[in-house]
């Protein structure tokens, strides 16, 4: 018996792994397309960034790293990074905490759960452009319901030009962003929390652990791998934030809410600073790639 089982195994190996070219034929089209669309822009950006191509000049000769030096001292660029970072470091924890709280409230029996969940799915599937429009409408100074409701609560007409007022423009953008994505956090975390073994939490409760102790010592560590991925997905989306800001403020007033993607868009498509945009694109890609590869290696190891 033993002597026959080993050859069978070997036959399987050779059956599955004999044709060496087959596996490369399978990945070839995907890799080709990714290279075509993914790699070309990086190389192109690198090349133009050391040339001198502006709205007025088409000089394809070696120009040195002048554009990178310009970028290094460009205050508008650093400010745009700061704006992007500001939105990310506020929106991300708020989305996470709101999502977690809501997920915790949904655990266990709840009447009308499927309907609530269907409503909460909506923001995540609505186009970000539409969400931007939605909040511009909500915060309209004259006919927006928020102005109206706040006036009613304050019992006097309030006159805030939400998306133009430097004090209020960030809250508006953050509300729109958080409104759209905290339900996404909620959906992921609810799924993760529902998977936590209730025997463990029950046992902890019987042993006298309080609500918070159970939550922080048992549930949270159990959902951490999922939470890590959720945080990463959102963090990467947030540093690329474009759509909502584009629709609500276009970076205004002035350049107060200009995020880095928006600044790239303006230098590239409004000012036609091809070389300068190339330098910016290349710098950002290098920066992000390093962060992403480091983070992904962690995920891959924990997988």
């Amino acid at each position, binding site marked *: 018996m033993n002597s026959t089982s080993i050859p069978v195994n070997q036959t*399987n190996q050779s059956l*599955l*792994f004999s044709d060496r070219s*087959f*596996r*490369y034929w*399978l990945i070839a*089209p*995907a890799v080709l397309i*990714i290279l075509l*669309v*993914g790699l*070309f*822009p*990086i190389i*192109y*950006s690198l090349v133009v960034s050391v040339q001198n191509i502006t709205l007025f000049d088409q000089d394809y000769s070696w120009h040195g790293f002048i554009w990178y030096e310009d970028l290094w001292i460009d205050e508008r660029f650093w400010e745009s990074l700061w704006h992007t970072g500001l939105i990310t470091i506020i929106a991300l924890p708020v989305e996470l905490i709101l999502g977690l709280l*809501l997920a915790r409230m*949904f655990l266990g029996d*709840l009447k009308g759960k499927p309907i*609530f969940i*269907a*409503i*909460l*799915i*909506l*923001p995540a*599937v*609505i*186009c*970000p*452009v*539409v969400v931007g*429009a*939605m909040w511009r*409408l909500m915060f309209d100074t*004259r*006919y*927006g*319901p928020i102005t109206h409701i706040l006036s009613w609560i304050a019992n006097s007409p309030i006159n805030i030009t939400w998306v133009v007022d430097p004090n209020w423009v960030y809250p508006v953008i953050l509300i729109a962003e958080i*409104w759209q994505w905290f*339900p996404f956090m909620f959906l*992921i975390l609810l799924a*993760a929390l529902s*998977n936590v073994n209730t025997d463990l939490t029950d046992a902890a409760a019987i042993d006298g652990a309080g609500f918070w102790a159970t939550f922080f010592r048992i549930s949270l560590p159990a959902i951490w791998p*999922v939470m*890590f*991925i959720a945080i990463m997905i959102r963090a*990467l989306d947030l*540093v*690329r934030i*474009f*759509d909502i800001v*584009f629709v609500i403020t276009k970076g205004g007033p002035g350049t107060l809410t200009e995020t880095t993607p928006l600044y*790239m868009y303006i230098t590239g*498509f409004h000012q036609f600073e091809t070389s300068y945009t190339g330098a910016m694109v290349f710098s950002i*890609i290098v920066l*992000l*790639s390093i962060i992403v590869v480091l983070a992904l290696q962690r995920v*891959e190891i924990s997988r």
Partner: protein
Amino acid sequence: MNRKVAIQVARYLGVLVCVAIVAFPIYWLFLMAFKTAEEVYAVPPVYFPAEIQFGSFKALFGASDDAKALVNSMIIATFTTVIAMVLGTMCAYSMVRFKTGGNHFAIWIMSQRMLPPIAIVFPLFLAFAFMEILDTFPSIIVVYVAFNLPFVIWMMRGYIEDIPISLEESARIDGCNRWQVLHKVVLPMSRSGIFATAVFTFVFTWNEFVFALVLTNKDIVTYPVQVTGYFAAQQTYWNSVGAMSILGTIPVFLAVVFFQRYLVRGISMGAIKE
């Protein structure tokens, strides 16, 4: 006992407040489609219109023919989804069964998904303009396929890993060739994964704005770009924004609700297994 009741009441209140906060802005924007122009700009705002109007929808299908944007989006999203699913599943299968490329290849694939669209769209725009293929279906579909492939590969890898290799081995011994194994074993076994991944790809593509804004302008304008077209310098055409948003949200919402039970794993990029 009283404390338990209080907790339950607080819980329901919390849930209802959250659901109301999510629902109201959607109601408000969608309501614009059914209001008259006067009601849209009325001060104080009209919370319940006196009469439901359908003029905004008629206008979209009428002379302006803005509804064409929805057809464009449908064509682009459908082709992108089908092509990305076919190529991505093939690639994922090779990576799982033959360990093609190993871990570094997998990480490289995923890192492509993380590139900011705004960064890669600028060189693409110049290249497409040079080749005179801006504003055409094939060019934007190729871009979307490339952009969605990493996600498809990443997801399908997880689903294919769950298929027992013994099933494929028996199929091979029973005389199937490699393509038949893919077709008769792998595809049926990973059906729920294919549904989930396809829905996500479709929704990503349907809602994508940056590529569409730059790479389309007249002939194949997509639905998000069409929506931004209603923001004029002097005023915003909220009737049209509302109507367009409703029509644009329905397909993706239906897809997501219909396939809801398959999507849990996809939303966490495979971190949650059913």
